[in-house]
């Protein structure tokens, strides 16, 4: 029974998280002696998806799928899953996938486990490791349903390369009208998003005021990073809510997280803990963040950050 992967794309581009999802599905399929099928809602290249490990591409064709609507995507995937008799459906941790997955799970009477951080530790019954308590702990959870929906955390597995060329077939789902209609979308087009970012530059109340964020944005730009902030900074209105990271904000699973003027409260750390490398810049050597970080500079952000920007530019010029 094959594995179906919901391969999200953004204007025809497969983000790293989607590539990772397919590679993860492939590794599972190899263990289960089955194939992995990438389900797409836009025109796809079989060669490209094959590279990440897909054996087949299933193109879901319906006018209603031209924009994301959770109900329609869930219906389309559940019909596709039944058509190919998939036993596992893998989705990402994007806002859209997290919106859609519970609907899909009910449609298929499937167990659903999100925030998965590694390959199954058992296939009978299917048992997966996933983060709980906002990354303060992990759990091994067994599924006892015929079909399972698995949500993979970002950066939990990595992209692997294969020389498969996936054949494309189409499937025409029958969809009901969505009960929810999108009236407008407001999306920053040139900004790196926290959800996708490899590097996140984050700052806290130590920056004193919103007028001092210029250097944070510049550092982020030099590093191709997303900007983030601690909760009080967004509560004070210094930065938008969408930048608030932590236990009650967004989770960050970046390769590199740089915390500037952030004390490292337990609620903040919980949300950023699954980032691979953490750097702290803080005047107070006793700040709890130093216990959670990999690298640290005890120093004044207003001196360290401009210097860091300068030295990074020089480093990039040398390594270009």
């Amino acid at each position, binding site marked *: 029974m094959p594995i179906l992967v919901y391969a999200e794309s953004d204007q025809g581009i497969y983000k790293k998280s989607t590539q990772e999802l397919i590679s993860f599905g492939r590794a599972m399929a190899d263990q289960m002696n089955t194939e992995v099928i990438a389900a797409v809602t836009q025109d796809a290249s079989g060669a490209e998806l094959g590279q990440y490990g897909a054996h087949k591409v299933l193109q879901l064709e319906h006018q209603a799928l031209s924009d994301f609507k959770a109900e329609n995507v869930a219906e389309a995937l559940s019909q596709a899953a039944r058509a190919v008799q998939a036993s596992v459906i893998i989705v990402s941790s994007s*806002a*859209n996938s997290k919106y859609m*997955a519970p609907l899909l799970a009910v449609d298929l009477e499937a167990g659903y*486990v*999100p925030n998965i951080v590694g390959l199954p530790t058992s296939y009978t019954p299917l048992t997966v490791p996933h983060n709980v308590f906002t990354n303060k702990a992990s759990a091994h959870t067994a599924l006892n349903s015929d079909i399972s929906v698995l949500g993979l955390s970002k950066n939990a597995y990595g992209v692997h390369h294969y020389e498969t060329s996936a054949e494309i077939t189409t499937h025409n789902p029958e969809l009901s009208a969505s009960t929810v209609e999108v009236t407008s979308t407001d999306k920053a087009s040139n900004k790196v*998003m926290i959800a996708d970012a490899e590097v996140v530059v984050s700052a806290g109340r130590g920056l004193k005021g919103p007028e001092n964020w210029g250097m944070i944005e510049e550092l982020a730009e030099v590093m191709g990073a997303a900007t983030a902030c601690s909760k009080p900074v967004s509560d004070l209105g210094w930065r938008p809510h969408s930048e608030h990271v932590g236990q009650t904000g967004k989770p960050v699973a970046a390769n590199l997280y740089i915390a500037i003027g952030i004390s490292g409260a337990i609620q903040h750390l919980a949300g950023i803990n699954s980032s691979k490398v953490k750097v702290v810049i803080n005047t107070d050597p006793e700040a709890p963040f130093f216990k959670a970080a990999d690298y640290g*500079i005890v120093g004044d952000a207003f001196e360290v950050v401009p210097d860091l920007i300068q030295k990074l530019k020089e480093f990039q010029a040398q390594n270009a």
Partner: protein
Amino acid sequence: MKILVCISHVPDTTSKINFNADQTEFDTSGVQYVINPNDEFGLTRALWFKEKQGATVHVANVGGSETEPTLRKALAIGADEAIRVDQTATDGYTVAQALAPIVKEGQYDLVIAGRESIDYNGGMVPGMLAKLCGFSFVNTCIGLEIDGNTATAVREIDGGKETLKTELPLIIGGQKGLVEESDLRIPNMRGIMQARTKPLHVKTEQSAAAKSQTLRYEKPAPKQAVTLVDNAEQLINLLHNEAKVI
């Protein structure tokens, strides 16, 4: 308008997370429980609808009697009635199944749940409940207005937001943004007194078996000590050559 707010009873955000000796269960000793933060934003928005638009606000939890203080707190803040489904909350699927008959029988127009519980981070109860009840559904909801039967909701998407229009009945998975931090309420003496006499119904029907079961928990391995550096150059060098992240 009848509103149901789903309340998850979770360890306070400052809690240290520990497990019992065989790592199969969360160790509740010394842990303070609170209303799940996402649900607190939702409850506060529900009370706004009560005050401004004359809505009735009920709260519901699926859990044992230990969750009642959390429900009483919701009553003290201003909810009218509470319902507890007396069942151990195992996975999100069973919680959604336990809540579905409450939603249907109560004829609620709007169900406000949280985007996720901060304990098991399922992020699934509101969506599953919507599907089980045939309600419209908006997740990661950061703004909600109701006008007659029509709802305008703002949803957070990756890198921005989206405005949506839909009809009641509706379920949302809410979060900060529905109201601001400064709008949150602390129960006052009068509220606490009133909460004692407000109805708290206990339902005992059991829902279907769970579709998943956690076998064991693990805490992250202890971290190595931080490497302190003196300047930006050393930092760049380590990030490039040792950590290999730039």
